[in-house]
């Protein structure tokens, strides 16, 4: 489907928020799902890029992205009213069991992207939610203050200690969670770099709490047909784009 750029704003150094009006608007969108985006007109780059759905407002889809390479570089130059090709929502998002009472969201850097929509879903179910958000520098975090007004507790950390606690967000999370009594009504959701996810998965295993991780992988189709995006799980290779991107933390063989 096609979409129109409503806004493409740099919300922090190198981090953009892109608001798209897809036509037609998809029937359902679940937190943790993603879209495949044609970052450029023409064939350079040729493959679409996957982006978590950051938010849905007013029949618009938002994605949050960091400019790292060719695809995101092109995307950052798209202007208001440009048309952008889009497929989605795709994949399996986060699951929120009926009995759940407490959600811990652990985000590393741009891994925070899917949690805006997730927070909306959790709040509508009145689930007690804490977002642990780690980034390299204060600047990457500062813009995210809007989240504070949304009824979630926010714990932040930076690698350099320039804002919030100093250190890796998983370590901060570990310290805090150890003070809780965890049970089946709690769940951990993590999105970020792979080392962070595997650390979060280990923590979940140690604490015997259910965890879900949102993975990234090189994708060609995003639809499940190319078999390019697989990750090794306890049941063999699974497609990140179809069986994921969200997997039970304990199903991934982190090696």
């Amino acid at each position, binding site marked *: 489907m096609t979409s129109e750029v409503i806004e493409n704003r740099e919300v922090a150094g190198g981090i953009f928020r892109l608001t798209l009006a897809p036509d037609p608007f998809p029937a359902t969108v679940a937190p943790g799902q993603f879209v495949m985006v*044609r970052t450029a007109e023409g*064939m*350079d*780059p*040729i*493959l*679409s890029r996957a982006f978590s759905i950051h938010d849905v407002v007013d029949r618009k889809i938002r994605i949050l992205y960091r400019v790292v390479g060719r695809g995101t570089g092109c995307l950052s130059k798209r202007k208001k009213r440009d048309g952008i*090709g889009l*497929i989605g929502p795709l994949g399996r998002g986060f699951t929120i069991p009926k009995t759940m009472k407490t959600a811990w969201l652990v985000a590393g850097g741009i891994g925070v992207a899917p949690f805006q929509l997730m927070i909306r879903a959790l709040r509508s179910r009145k689930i007690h939610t804490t977002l642990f958000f780690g980034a390299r520098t204060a600047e990457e975090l500062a813009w995210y203050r809007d989240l504070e007004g949304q009824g979630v507790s926010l714990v932040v950390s930076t690698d350099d200690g320039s804002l919030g606690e100093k250190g890796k967000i998983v370590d901060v999370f570990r310290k805090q969670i150890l003070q809780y009594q965890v049970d089946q009504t709690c769940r951990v959701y993590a999105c970020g770099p792979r080392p962070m996810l595997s650390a979060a998965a280990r923590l979940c295993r140690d604490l015997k709490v259910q965890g879900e991780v949102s993975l990234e*992988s*090189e*994708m*060609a*189709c*995003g*639809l*499940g*047909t*190319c*078999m*390019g*995006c*697989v*990750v*090794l799980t306890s049941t*063999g*290779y699974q497609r990140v784009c*179809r069986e994921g991107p969200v997997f039970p933390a304990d199903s991934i063989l982190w090696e």
Partner: protein
Amino acid sequence: MNKRTSFSTPDLAVNIGGIRMKNPVITASGTFGYGEEMSELYDLSSLGGIMVKGLSLSPQPGNPPPRICETPAGMLNAIGLQNIGVRVFIEEKLPMLRRWDTRIIANIYGHDCGEYAEVARCLNDAEGVDGIELNISCPNVKKGGMAFGTDPVETRKVVKAVRRACRLPLIVKLSPNVTDITEFARAAEGEGADAISLINTLLGMAIDIHLRKPILANIMGGLSGPAIRPVALRMVYQVARSVKVPLIGMGGIMNAEDAVSFLLAGASAVAIGTANFVDPMTPLKVIHGIRDYMIQYDMTSMQDLIGAL
């Protein structure tokens, strides 16, 4: 010009070595899964045919990731033919696929001639497969794959073995990683292939200069996409001039213009591969575009178009 006044819709039907298709647009093996996922996007009955992901005798796990890597106007893949095995395909996927009014072509490979033949036999006995595409050209598995497609003696052997094992229309898919593609086309034709499809991917490689290692876990992979189109088109042109069986042309076809150029070069049908990833609607657009082209140039049947260089 005077034909134009009749406003007759051109007839896009083709017969590929016994497989009658409503139009010459097929989806290439490995880029369309078993059709399941794509059927959520559009009506698969629009397609001339579907070439399903390469099937082997037993299920295969495939290669470790990373399996794909983007390149200029193309991509490398080293999937390693991950698949569910021919028996599970017949039981679980084929019935679903049969619901669509399109031709189902089973792409197969084996580790030796016996295995190739065995897979073909299974499909022959199953209900609802319209043809077999013999993949002797996959660069991403050690045994069974490119070795068969880069040695004319091996090509002959494997085609002969499969030819004996099944009565289904047999398409042999050639590797472009050879000095003289026509030699392999003639070998396949000589052993009774009903059609030839070309090209499979070009063997390529990419390196991560910061990690100082190949990007693909498998080191090398197959290059596909528009980058290889000039090579594919040249090979179709060459092969069309050296065999009599119909050809299915593929390699970097992104739109109807590309498809028409393959048909003009002598292909009787085309397959869409990598373009399915770039825009999943490509096959439908190509069908419409071929029709428009035929109307523009007053062509009434595919015979007016195929090889009309």
